[in-house]
């Protein structure tokens, strides 16, 4: 879902002559292409070596941005993470999650 391979292209030519009429979106299933992580000003970073895999971050994340592999945390989807910081706030393990300023496109 985060690979973006099957998502419709949401970039239009910007000229008013070429935009879809009336601000409509003349294709379907476009919510997948809308990467809400673009709003973020700060982001959580994860240290796999410190993580206890209690999954409290996964439970509390409002955007399903905590990625799991079976029963273990494997990372954070920055496509959808809005940088709310709930995961960091709820994390009981010292050093596993920390908020840092997000200065640009995800590494």
């Amino acid at each position, binding site marked *: 879902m985060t690979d973006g391979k099957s998502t419709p292209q949401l970039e*239009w030519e*910007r*000229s*008013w*002559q070429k*935009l879809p*009429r*009336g*601000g*409509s*979106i*003349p*294709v*379907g*299933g*476009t919510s997948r292409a809308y990467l809400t992580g673009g709003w973020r000003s700060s982001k959580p970073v994860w240290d796999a070596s410190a993580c206890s895999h209690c999954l409290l971050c996964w439970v509390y994340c409002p955007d399903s941005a905590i990625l799991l592999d079976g029963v273990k945390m494997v990372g954070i989807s920055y496509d959808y993470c809005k940088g709310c910081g709930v995961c960091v706030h709820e994390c009981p393990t010292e050093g596993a999650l920390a908020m840092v300023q997000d200065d640009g496109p995800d590494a």
Partner: protein
Amino acid sequence: MTAQSERVALTGNEAGALAMRQSRPDVVAGYPITPQTELMQQFAQYVADGASDTELILVESEHSAMSAVVGAAATGVRAMTATSANGLAFMWEMLFIAAGYRLPIVMQLVSRSLGGPLNIHCDHSDAMGARETGWLQFFAENAQEAYDNALMAVRIAEHPEVLLPVMTVQDGFITSHTTQVLETLDDETVSAFVGTYRPTDSLSNLAKPMTYGAIVLPDYYMEVKRQQVEAMDEAPRIVALIEEEYADLTGRRYESLDPYRMDDAESAIVVLGSAAGTGKDAVDLLREQGHAVGLLKVRRFRPFPAEEVAQALSHCSAVGVLDRSLALGAPWGPLASDVASSLMRARANVPMLNYVYGLGGRDITVSDIVGVGSGLMQDASDGPKAAVRYVGVHE
């Protein structure tokens, strides 16, 4: 070659309801408000009698009425409603939505004052409040024109090169409740004229999924609005084609302006709606008295026919614009402001005066307009040019 027509006596509201039934809308949302009530009541009667298979939605407010037709139109069907006064004001938010989404909704407005104080009679305050919401606006002089405008509106709104909502306006009680003799077309002729609405995009076309109503942020919003301006600017070309087609069908020719004895006029009176009829009688009397006065009826108020207005008036030595609404705090009334802008844009320096009349149903008589017309030349040359004058107000 004109179509099958019948001469019948109808009120403006009945004429409006008949035009609505004959243009076979898929969805109509109705909410009664004086003086429109009779129109929707008559239409509801058609539905109840099985004379119309329209889905009539009886909503609980005008905001809902416009919302319902917006939703219906977005699914790709022909949707209509009608309202008056505070009802139109209550639709305010949804008027922008309808126009912004480029939905070809047709609405009949039976014009009425906006309180307070509460008043149910005619003036154009309601229509003027909606004049920059992105709807085309056509003002009718009488029931015949109300009927004809309502039919042409369907074709104009749904034309693929327009796709804008259209509001047709008739004067509350004056036109809406007066029985007049008019020519109507038979159902088959209207059906053939309005045709079937075939939208290129719609929410119900499952083979081509789409979205109406998505948020459009600063990166695209201004471009979408620019498109809307273009559609408005281009609409008159299509409107003229449809008016031409309607003239071939009925023998009744309509244009954006209806000039009366304007060719050799030294001064002119500009007016909207039913007062044009009174004005034509006044012009005849003025001519008999030796005043070379003409009358310019503005039929298509939005988009405003600025070039045509300037052309029609630029040879005059004085112009008096009659407004049936106030623009509180503005230099002039809405019609006068548009006429002035049109003349200014054409660099035509014509002395202009603005008269406000008929608020809240105050009668406008032939002698009132004769009074305006006979003094126009003198008033324009030496009167206070900036001030709005009031016709028929008790001093």
